[in-house]
């Protein structure tokens, strides 16, 4: 079959897989984004002893393959099946999608925590002092001064992390989630036509490209009050240059 015929015949599956990939990535990134600001604050402000568990967690997540983390959660949960059944959690861990999502969210949380920590540390002290001077409460200082600036600093690196997560989400296919990679392997095992891999590659590249454009758009919006002549340092670096 020609590459075009493959696409014509199997596009519904590839589309289905693409949507699954996007769903896994977005949900994983969002869960991580909800948790990481708190963790980042702990990493910046808490006493060294209180930070220790978090540091070990981050180091573990960054020092082990995501595939191993995924297997640890998906297959490893089987060892505690009676216990999990007792707690009513077994139906959660039996589903490969849930396990993959949990693994990706845990992994991304570690990376996002470190990135945001860098962002929070990058906020000039003067801004925080100024907030204190005009009588903002600590919570309001965080919400109105620290985090808006921290996110602006961390934005390009966070975008890279989401792209890395999207690439990592292809691993879910190994535990039988039918994401784009899973669908591609399924079609390949049926047709033995190599071109389906090339279509998959093209789709992955398109997802990345569209994401990069959207992310830049958001970045421009985040720093719209600054104006083009005085762009912050973080926006001056092209997105592709940095990698977590």
């Amino acid at each position, binding site marked *: 079959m020609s590459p075009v015929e493959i696409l014509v015949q199997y596009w519904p599956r590839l589309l289905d897989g693409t949507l699954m990939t996007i769903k896994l990535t977005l949900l994983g990134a969002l869960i991580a984004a909800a948790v990481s600001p708190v963790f980042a604050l702990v990493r910046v402000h808490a006493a060294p002893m209180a930070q220790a568990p978090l540091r070990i967690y981050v180091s573990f997540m960054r020092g*082990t*393959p995501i595939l191993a983390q995924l297997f640890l959660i998906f297959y490893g949960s089987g*060892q505690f099946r009676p216990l999990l059944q007792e707690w009513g959690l077994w139906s959660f861990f039996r589903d490969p999608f849930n396990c993959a999502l949990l693994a990706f969210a845990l992994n991304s949380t570690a990376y996002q925590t470190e990135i945001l920590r860098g962002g929070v540390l990058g906020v000039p002290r003067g801004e925080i002092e100024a907030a204190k001077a005009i009588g903002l409460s600590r919570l309001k200082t965080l919400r109105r001064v620290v985090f808006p600036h921290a996110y602006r600093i961390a934005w390009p690196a966070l975008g890279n992390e989401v792209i890395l997560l*999207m690439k990592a989400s292809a691993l879910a296919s190994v535990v039988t989630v039918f994401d784009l990679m899973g669908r591609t*392997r399924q079609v390949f095992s049926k047709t033995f036509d190599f071109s389906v891999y090339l279509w*998959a590659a093209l789709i992955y590249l398109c997802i990345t490209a569209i994401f990069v454009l959207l992310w830049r758009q958001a970045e421009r919006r985040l720093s719209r009050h600054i104006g083009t002549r005085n762009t912050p340092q973080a926006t001056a670096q092209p997105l592709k240059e940095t990698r977590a």
Partner: protein
Amino acid sequence: MFELFSYGDAGWGDEILQGLAITVQLAIATLPVGLCIGFLAAFASMSRARPLRFLGFGYTTIMRGLPEILTLFVVYNGAGLLINAVLRWWAPEASPIDFSPFAAGVVALGMVFGAFAAEVLRGAFQSLDRGQVEAGRAIGMTGRKIFLRIQLPQVWRFALPGLGNLWINMLKDTALVSVIALDDLMRMTKVAVGVTKQPFTFYLLACLIYWAMCVLSELVLAQMERRANRGIRRA
């Protein structure tokens, strides 16, 4: 519980160590391949010839945007097909060659490593002091000598932190080859899990081994960076 990890027939210690040996071999074999690809792609993207620049830029952009596991499958399935197609054309009577998973792992991981390394090396070359190259030219050094004596020693210093990160990423990515049936640490762990029915114990062990390798790498890299920066006064 500890007899599970013991050496010999009763335990899985020796099997897992064999897997670890494959993982380490794979990583060490990939490094020079990846560095070569990285240098080639970096030179291409800094070249004065436009097509070469386009090629280098295209390669790094595409390879960095694809999931590593997809690259691995493309190489494993595609390179085998390609080699045998060439072989059939070249020598129709020869029996088809099996493209080994180890070779596929080295090529695929090397291609990924090379794409990221190209960006690191390009950045390192561009952060060199241009005046030094001009000085070399002024005292009549040839282009090759300038490269070997002035640029390369300093590129090493600038590129080391980035390359170190890539090494650690590559070390972790070796786990992917277990999916194409290479008996690395991850796959031997899977075999042990299949027999003992203790998935959490063994996958945790595998994670701890990978973690130890990464932490060890970080320590060695810190030492190498210190060594590379000896003689440099800190501002």
